[in-house]
């Protein structure tokens, strides 16, 4: 499944979002940030195992052309109980893919509230803000909040090492598979 970048409307300020589940928690992400959705089953054989203890949320990398895309386990990233993941979101213009349980639905948000300043730790990097949908408050994740430049640096080193030690799996084709 591929998503087109959301068009900006000049009159209605709304944003298409995908609600997804990870370890029984619901999160929202802008659909314009998600380039492809793939089933984890389709990625067997194309993922390389990565072992960088300082970035425990990443266990696998995917090769696309010359680039390495790192698969972040969303449950581990948010400190939740590990859960059986079913889908992978490949993020647009990013070297991050998200491993998550499943999609709840696609919808539109019309208002994004800033995360209250009382939240003052890593969550400020994790979330763009909060949105209210059908009397539920949902965090809207920031696509840039999953890995820092320093974490990319460490992962690139680990990926290089893994590539030298093991034969490379086939690269992930650009046009994806439908989950």
């Amino acid at each position, binding site marked *: 499944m591929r998503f087109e970048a959301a068009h900006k409307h000049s009159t209605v300020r709304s944003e298409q979002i995908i609600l997804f589940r990870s370890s029984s928690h619901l999160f929202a992400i802008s659909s314009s940030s998600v380039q492809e959705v793939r089933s984890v089953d389709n990625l067997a054989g194309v993922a390389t195992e990565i072992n960088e203890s300082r970035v425990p949320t990443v266990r696998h990398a995917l090769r696309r052309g010359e680039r390495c895309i790192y698969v972040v386990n969303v449950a581990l990233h948010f*400190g939740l109980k590990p859960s059986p993941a079913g889908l992978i979101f490949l993020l647009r213009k990013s070297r991050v893919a998200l491993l998550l349980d499943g999609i709840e639905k696609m919808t539109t948000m019309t208002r994004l*509230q800033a995360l*209250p300043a009382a939240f003052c730790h890593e*969550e400020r990097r*994790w979330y763009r803000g909060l949105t*209210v949908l059908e009397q539920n*408050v949902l*965090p809207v994740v920031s696509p840039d909040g999953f890995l820092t430049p320093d*974490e990319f640096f460490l992962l690139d*080193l680990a990926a290089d090492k893994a590539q030298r030690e093991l034969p490379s799996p086939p690269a992930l084709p650009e046009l994806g598979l439908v989950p």
Partner: protein
Amino acid sequence: MTWTEQIDSHSCVLLRIGERTFALAADQVAELVAPSRIFRFPHHTPELDGVILRRGRVVPVCDLAEKLTGKRLTSRRFYLIAWRQQAASKETVALPVSGECELIKADLTPAGPSDSPHVAAWLSHNGEVVEVLNLNALTPEIIPSHSAIVSEAAQEVRV
């Protein structure tokens, strides 16, 4: 000069947290509301339980009981919605309380240098000495995050 130094007599709201009574300056109190559904999502600020929705706005729930009494609240009768200064702006926080609140006028004694930072002043009410809370001192502090630790590790590798 703080408000406690400017005036002797001040309107305060008494609140019950567990077995103890505390006070807040009345001008810091927005409203007292019945407990409503708490929305929880992953975060690393331990003082915060989650958020509630109040008139379409998201209000963080900050449980002060453990900090002030050493015990978590077993029952929450109300949320006292209070204003807290954050940098140049103000925002509301919902403080779970275990009983009804009371508006009083009382003479305040400013906190001394030996008092805890969370004490803005003292007041006497019905023979009880009550701490007037400094909400800003009770709110969470920014600490170095995991990303800072990883950043240090990356620097080590680069050197």
